[in-house]
């Protein structure tokens, strides 16, 4: 059963949501999902850009009251 973990990166200016995702994805198993919460609207672009470049999978990206919920599946 694939697991889903969440990184609450709201208000994270440094290292920031994408860096938190890169660090967090090392700690989960292939097939597991990682949800990143970000208050930086730039995350909606830069996270999918990196995920696609590296070859992981974007599961979803939604915005709720200024917080982006971005879910990524580790593919390799």
């Amino acid at each position, binding site marked *: 059963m694939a697991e889903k973990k969440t990184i609450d990166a709201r208000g994270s200016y*440094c*290292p920031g949501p994408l860096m938190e995702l890169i660090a967090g994805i090392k700690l989960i198993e292939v097939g597991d999902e990682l949800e990143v919460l970000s208050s930086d609207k730039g995350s909606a672009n*830069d996270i999918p850009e*990196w995920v696609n470049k590296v070859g992981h999978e974007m599961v979803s990206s939604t915005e709720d009251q200024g917080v982006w919920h971005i879910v990524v599946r580790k593919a390799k």
Partner: protein
Amino acid sequence: MKILIVGGGMGGTILANNLSRRLKRELKSGKAKITMLSASDQHMYQPGLLYVALGRMAVDELYRDQASLLEPEIEFHVDPVEEFNLDGNQVKTKSGKTYDYDLIVIATGSRAVPESIPGLAENSINVYTEAAALEFYRTISEFKGGRVVIAVGVPHKCPMIPPELTFTLYDYFRDRGILDKVSFHYTYPIGRLHSLEPVSDWMQGEFAERGVTSETLFNMKEVDGANKVVLSEEDSEAKYDLLVAVPAHKGMEVLETNDLGAGGWIPVDRNRLNIEGHDNAFAIGDTTNIPISKAGSTAHYEAEALAENIASMIKIGAPVRDYDGKVFCFIEAGKDRATYAMFNYNKPPDPKPPTKSVHWFKMAYNQLYWATARGLL
């Protein structure tokens, strides 16, 4: 109230001293007791490693006897913890002793793990230990010229070290008179030059002036030492003659073996700093999983907030303040100019152009740090 502090680095030491001052009366009457357990009898000023690596600070300037930094009421033992029993309010140490507590703070820091990338440890230099910093200086002092590549792992301690290494090495090679034989190529894991956007914008101009090339979205996968090339997760590569690494970090192994957090990072509440599921167990500094900078200043400000809260819990039965995510980082922009970035959970940084005066303040702070560790500054 038996308070146990595990770790004698910046966070643990500032916390212990700050708390000791706040609890003078309780410590004297026996109502409170503070015990610190550390892996070493020495305290290292870790930011000084950059200057050791550049030949600008002697190794012995990095250290003080840990006991000499602590308030006399603090009981100090060099006896690292091997087993944590947070449900039973007990730890077991390397010497075999068991320590009971009413409240525990874990501040064991983080460590660079260059070995996590195949080929990185044996083919690169870094500034994260005394031995590594000395090897760094030996290597750069013998470097005759070629392509210097800066490569950055995630997560890493001190978010300003990638630009600082680039700018200070540039000045170092200029002073050695070999700058015409050296080129710089800077890589970074995300889609800009630094995680802080204003710092990234500033670096772009500085890089253009110096002719530093760059590649972003570059995460190290492997180093091929025979062919002197770094391969990235993003399927690109960077040829180097000298590979300067900012290796990825992990928390301490003992935290992983005790199942306190993946990667050795302990999940804590971002404001109260208590370990998830526990009201009497806390973590500060690099040890936590809070998504902010792993930096000495983070540990410093967390320690101050937590000391105030622990003292108030003892005195009035409740905490009185939240940690607001405050971080302050100097940024060395070369050998004689610096700036700084200050931010918290709600306020982004607004770094100013580098000046000589900020650089000299940083030089002064390298000495003033010992007052910070004592909880005085």
